[in-house]
């Protein structure tokens, strides 16, 4: 951990939050540089190279969810749904303009479209959902995630000489011309998306995400959102518009999940909305990243997302045990961090520990 020490020395004058944020950025940049060096010297196996973009995808969506869970203080079980919206919107765009647009511009536009689509859906979902609280909000976001997946699986979209065709029944009812291009074939999803994303783009997107989220947290809006989390009634009483600020945070979070979806879609040439990749299970997996990394701890989410994506691949064959271990970790983390007894116990332990330390220092 030498880099930590150097940074700490050089930045004594900067405020604590800024320092903390710089460490987070630095960590990502450093990891990027190390990986790039290792890749260019041929020291990284194909397996790890193939995992680099998924790392970025899951880091972004974990940070996005942490914004909802940690900062807004609401449990969303529908983030895989927002990811799904971003992925499909951008994949359809990229496929439609596969031949007619250069790669870089196309990906940039796809990114904006994916993020915007997810933000729009997040906004629309947020209006009704954020009126609810606690368990209800969780279950409704879960329902929304399932609805999104369900609709995309029944959606047929094609383009030909006479324009766009769409149907909710089957491909035959599109009545497409012979040379038409199928964009979404219901459950068969989108096939042939150009592989436009790469590790560098992924890391840039992580940095952008971090920039947005960290600045958000430290902005006026962010503080308003956190005050709602900590005490809604008090926040309301000082004139904070609860719904508005909640909606802002939720929309930002959804659109970042959409960005992760864009990255996901442009890394694979097939895109299906399966229960496994965009269903409730994925939402839970992202939640595991957030919980394990520490709720509200952005850096923790990054590390947890990378580790938990890497481990099962390195330990291929243990996949049956993976989810079991996640489940146990989830329960244990919750009891350890949130149980009133455990909190009391830790407080006492800390008091003793720090108390001794302070005494020593004074002596």
């Amino acid at each position, binding site marked *: 951990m030498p880099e930590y020490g150097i940074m700490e020395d050089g930045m004594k004058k900067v405020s604590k939050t800024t320092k903390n944020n710089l460490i987070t950025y630095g960590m990502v940049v450093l990891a990027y540089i190390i990986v790039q060096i290792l890749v260019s010297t041929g020291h990284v196996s194909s397996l*790890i190279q193939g995992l680099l973009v998924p790392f970025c995808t899951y880091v972004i969506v974990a940070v996005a969810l942490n914004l909802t869970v940690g900062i807004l203080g609401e449990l969303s079980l529908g983030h895989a749904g927002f990811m799904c919206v971003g992925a499909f919107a951008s994949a359809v765009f990229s496929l439609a303009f596969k031949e007619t647009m250069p790669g870089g511009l196309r990906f940039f536009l796809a990114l904006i479209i994916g993020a915007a689509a997810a933000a729009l859906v997040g906004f629309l979902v947020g209006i009704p959902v954020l009126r609810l609280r606690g368990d209800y909000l969780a279950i409704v976001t879960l329902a929304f995630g399932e609805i999104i997946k369900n609709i995309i699986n029944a959606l047929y979209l094609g383009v030909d000489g006479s324009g766009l065709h769409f149907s909710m029944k089957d491909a035959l009812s599109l009545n497409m011309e012979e040379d038409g291009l199928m964009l979404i074939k219901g459950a068969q999803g989108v096939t042939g998306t150009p592989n436009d994303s790469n590790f560098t783009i992924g890391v840039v997107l992580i940095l952008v995400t971090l920039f947005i989220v960290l600045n958000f947290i430290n902005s006026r809006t962010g503080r308003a959102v956190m005050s709602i989390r900590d005490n809604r009634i008090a926040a309301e009483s000082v004139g904070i518009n609860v719904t508005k600020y909640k909606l802002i945070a939720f929309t930002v979070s959804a659109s970042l999940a959409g960005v992760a979806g864009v990255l996901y879609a442009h890394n694979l040439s097939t895109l299906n909305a399966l229960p496994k990749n965009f269903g409730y299970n994925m939402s839970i997996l992202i939640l595991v990243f957030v919980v394990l990394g520490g709720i509200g701890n952005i850096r923790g989410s990054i590390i947890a997302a990378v580790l938990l994506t890497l481990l099962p691949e390195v330990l291929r064959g243990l996949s049956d045990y993976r989810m079991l271990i996640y489940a146990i970790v989830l329960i244990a983390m919750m009891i350890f961090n949130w149980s009133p007894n455990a909190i009391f116990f830790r407080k006492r332990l800390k008091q003793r520990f720090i108390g001794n330390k302070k005494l020593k220092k004074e002596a």
Partner: protein
Amino acid sequence: MKKKMLSLVLAGAMTAAMLTGCGSSASTGTNDASAETAEDASATEDTAATEESAETTESTESNGATFKIGGIGPLTGGAAVYGIAAMNGSQIAVDEINEAGGINGMTVELNFQDDELDAEKSVNAYNALKDWGAQVLDGCVTSACSIAVSAKTAEDQMFQITPSGSAVECVANDNAFRICFSDPNQGSASAQYIGENGLASKVAVIYDSSDVYSSGIYEKFAAEAANQSIEIVSAGAFTADNKTDFSVQLQQAKDAGAELVFLPIYYTEASLILTQAADMGFDVDFFGCDGLDGILNVENFDTSLAEGVMLLTPFAADATDDLTVQFVTTYKEKYGETPNQFAADGYDTVYTIKAAAEKAGITADMSNEEICAALTAAMTEITVDGLTGEGITWDASGEPTKAPKAVVIKDGVYTAM
């Protein structure tokens, strides 16, 4: 204070993880990596099979060179039956080939990786196989995974032949071929079979609209049914989240007076449909595709319900030709169950690779790109007599040409019809 400490520790862990993650791969050259992945592979499912192949590797004193075939399929999860069958079938072929002296004097090694039916995992598995040093790819077993991986094999120029990836796009790239029929082929062949044999004129379809395979077959079936003057009286879709209650779809089929229900779906749902149809007193013929293969192995399923079910599959385990009899005997000995069509596809895949490799004169010192180019050219020139068809040939598109066979379940076994 606590938070700071925690983040310090986490940052440390992160750096350590990154370094060790990359470090281990840094230290492992191809040899180490292969040892590691081989271990993983044996850990996944069939320790016995891998050990046996290791033994045969030692027993056949060839020229020492190896030919590495990578395989990918679902070995865990809901579709594990297919992946494991394809893996076992491939392994039997590999063992036989090694006993007979290998391919061009090279010993064949098979490393079969799990993809959990997830396209992303499948690409990861492919990358792991590249680290192992795979020279050709036997996979993927399922369509969506196969499509995702074929984009990568095309990029790397690795020869790919899928045993059972039936979606059209699986073989869109020049370097990709398949053993099984394509979905459209199965759909239109089913309609033709029903029409030509006069099985029914009013047909109901129950299909999984959230599944690539099922909706792909349904579309082509519907298109071809019109030509065969088959009337589709009801088409009931279901989705992956809603696949235990088929009362609505069956009720619709019954009300519409269907004489035959076409089930282009997998066997687990089909077993439920058969049970529920029997419950509601709906007595009708059922016709399916290769996904129905395996229905007799559903644990605790009343197989008498499957009596009379017809399915279009290229492989019948009770066929009396020498090749099938021998394969079924070996498979039963080794794995203790009757092989299904996926096992036969896996077996044929390895023999097709062998035929193409011998035609192209593949040698141990060729790079993957050279192997790919040579095999791609050779594929259109070979003819394979396999378990899933006689005189199978391929054209440059990657599609096989072979005659479809239909089997009917009679007295609890698949019987050719």
